[in-house]
């Protein structure tokens, strides 16, 4: 099981788009992929129009890890999306618990890849995610504000590494804002200034906005757009799509595949470098080789790259932030307040507004004063609607053990059947 974190210290740089599209490409290549929507805003859900109510494009079911979140299965074939938070909460603790329970959960055995979409950098979440991930891809927009604040995230990674995490930096993905062309001088300047930037770059692509409107991944809506091509090249270089395994493999052999992936990543991984967080970042790709591969459409694996090293004290990186990164104390005003001082949690983060539906219902704009009426809270107070939308179906009471047990049973039976089939197949030969 490979776990890839898509992260950034800054919001709005394309994290969610990157996570959704990389996960989709891996799923299209036949991998079983789980996409974790770790952003309390539910950005992945908002991108794919996944909600906890009957407006959702896919039916939400309780997650099998903590039972608090929801999972939408086969959003794209082989791709499941999970939101680890309960319906009325965005708490750090829930995510931390989820990540702790994930490796031992039966759920994790189903997947080849886990892709995590990171939230903004605050509270306990970024650290917990870095600790839960094996690999991290940093997304940066090609603009000064983004790169000037990058040292804060690298510092956080150093801290997490010092605390024993084993996460590897796979590189920095540059996304271009509107008005900055691919291969432009601005892009070149940033490449010269910062090491570790991947050769793939995501151009500004209006189709991304259109894909969001449709609630579908860009790589499916626009399979040939400029950004899609770059995401394909990136997925290939990250090894998310290079394995051409059959789309569905029996559960019995799944563990063998997972095992081999694990051993490979720990022994043969050319990007492996313990020194990464100790002061060097990796430039894990030889640009020429990869570019040649990409331009020829060659699906072969790139040559093992030469890791470039840099020192943070080099002039290539801007000085660290004044005061450094302060992650633990989340109080603006310097002294703790009672936890009850204000509402800690936010309901309604999965509320979704659909422009098309609004247009269809009279052309009025979104109701910004309140979330749309079809939210799980409302449904809770008005029973009798469609069963799928009932909170009970989404978030079972602790006493209600039927669903998880049913799932475990189904899982067990499926595994048994698959194992028997595989055994029969091999013995029969």
């Amino acid at each position, binding site marked *: 099981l490979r776990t890839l974190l898509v992260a950034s210290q800054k919001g709005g740089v394309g994290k969610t788009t990157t996570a959704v599209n990389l996960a989709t490409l891996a799923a299209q290549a036949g991998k079983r992929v789980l996409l974790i929507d770790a952003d309390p805003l539910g950005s992945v859900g908002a991108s794919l129009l996944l909600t906890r109510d009957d407006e959702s494009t896919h039916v939400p079911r309780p997650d099998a890890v903590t039972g608090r979140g929801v999972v939408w299965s086969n959003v794209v074939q082989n791709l499941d999306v999970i939101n680890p938070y309960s319906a009325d909460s965005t708490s750090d603790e829930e995510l931390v618990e989820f990540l702790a329970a994930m490796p031992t959960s039966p759920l994790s055995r189903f997947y080849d890849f886990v892709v995590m979409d990171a939230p903004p950098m605050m509270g306990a979440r970024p650290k917990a995610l870095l600790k839960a991930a094996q690999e991290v891809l940093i997304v940066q927009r090609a603009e000064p504000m983004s790169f000037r604040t990058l040292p804060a995230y690298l510092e956080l990674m150093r801290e997490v590494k010092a605390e024993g995490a084993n996460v590897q930096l796979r590189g920095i993905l540059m996304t271009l804002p509107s008005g900055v062309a691919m291969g432009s001088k601005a892009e070149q300047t940033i490449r010269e200034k910062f090491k570790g930037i991947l050769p793939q770059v995501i151009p500004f692509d*209006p189709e991304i906005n259109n894909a969001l409107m449709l609630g579908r991944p860009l790589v499916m809506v626009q399979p040939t757009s400029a950004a899609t091509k770059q995401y394909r090249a990136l997925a290939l270089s990250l090894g998310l799509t290079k394995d051409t395994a059959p789309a569905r493999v029996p559960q019995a052999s799944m563990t063998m595949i997972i095992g081999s992936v694990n051993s490979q990543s720990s022994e043969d991984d050319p990007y492996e470098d313990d020194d990464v967080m100790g002061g060097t970042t990796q430039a894990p790709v030889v640009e020429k080789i990869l570019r040649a591969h990409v331009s020829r459409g060659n699906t072969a694996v790139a040559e093992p790259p030469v890791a470039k090293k840099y020192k943070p004290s080099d002039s290539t990186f801007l000085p660290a932030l004044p005061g450094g990164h302060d992650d633990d104390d989340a109080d603006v005003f310097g002294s703790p307040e009672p936890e009850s001082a*204000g509402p800690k949690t936010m309901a309604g983060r999965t509320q979704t507004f659909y422009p098309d539906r609004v247009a269809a219902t009279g052309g009025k704009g979104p109701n*910004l004063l309140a979330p749309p009426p079809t939210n799980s809270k409302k449904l809770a107070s008005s029973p009798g609607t469609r069963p799928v939308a009932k909170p009970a179906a989404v978030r079972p009471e602790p006493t209600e053990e039927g669903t998880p047990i049913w799932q475990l049973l189904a899982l067990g039976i499926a595994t048994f059947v698959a194992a028997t089939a595989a055994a029969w197949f091999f013995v029969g030969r």
Partner: protein
Amino acid sequence: MMSSTAFNGNGASPMPTEQPNSLSTPYILAVTSHKGGTGRTTLALALAWLWGQRGFAVTLIDADPIKAASLVAFGPGGFCPWDNVNVIVARQGVARIPPKQDIIIIDTPPATEPLAQKVFQKANGVIICSLADSLALNTLPAATKAVIEAQATNETMDLLGIVVNIFNPADLAQTRCLSLLRGAPGGLFVEPPIPLRSELREWPRQPGSNLPDSPAMPSLRSLADTFRDQMAEAGWDRLARRKGDSVAHSIGS
């Protein structure tokens, strides 16, 4: 003295909430967003610069964990060189507001973050900075709801409105989203949208430099005036515009 109150949130709450009309208390304005990357920090910085140029004593509190605002506002000397503007990084133990401030602007994390909720408890007004894209339409209701929920415990706080930032009129998807926002019930959208300008994007390249002049300037000045009017209406009389007295008229062109 009310205006020299330490902004330490220790629960004593010597806040202007008790004397909203007092001239001696600063107006506390939280600039927040529904998600990251909306240009919220740039908007907060621009408002601070514009009001500082107008002669108001402005303190900008950088409450974002990545401290983007101070990265832009602090010049080479390690302080903010702008006229009448004082920038404070929260959580460095010095979040003490200088005496006799007119406006406190807080660069606040996205509205649904618990940290933002704490800021809303202190604020007199909140601005939500948004983009005109479909993801914004999906996530804005949650942010708006977060602000409105905070009013349950801070009745004096107003939601001044939603500003659309980094707007590209050539992008059809954006113009469509903007028209949906304009038609949204509640009248929360504040005109005009701030256009996409590379000058603003490149502003952090020269830390401590003035707000770059660009075709976005009229929009920013107009917004600064609009919010000033709203603050004056809420009881901060000294912020009221006199005849012909506005940010738009007081600076250069």
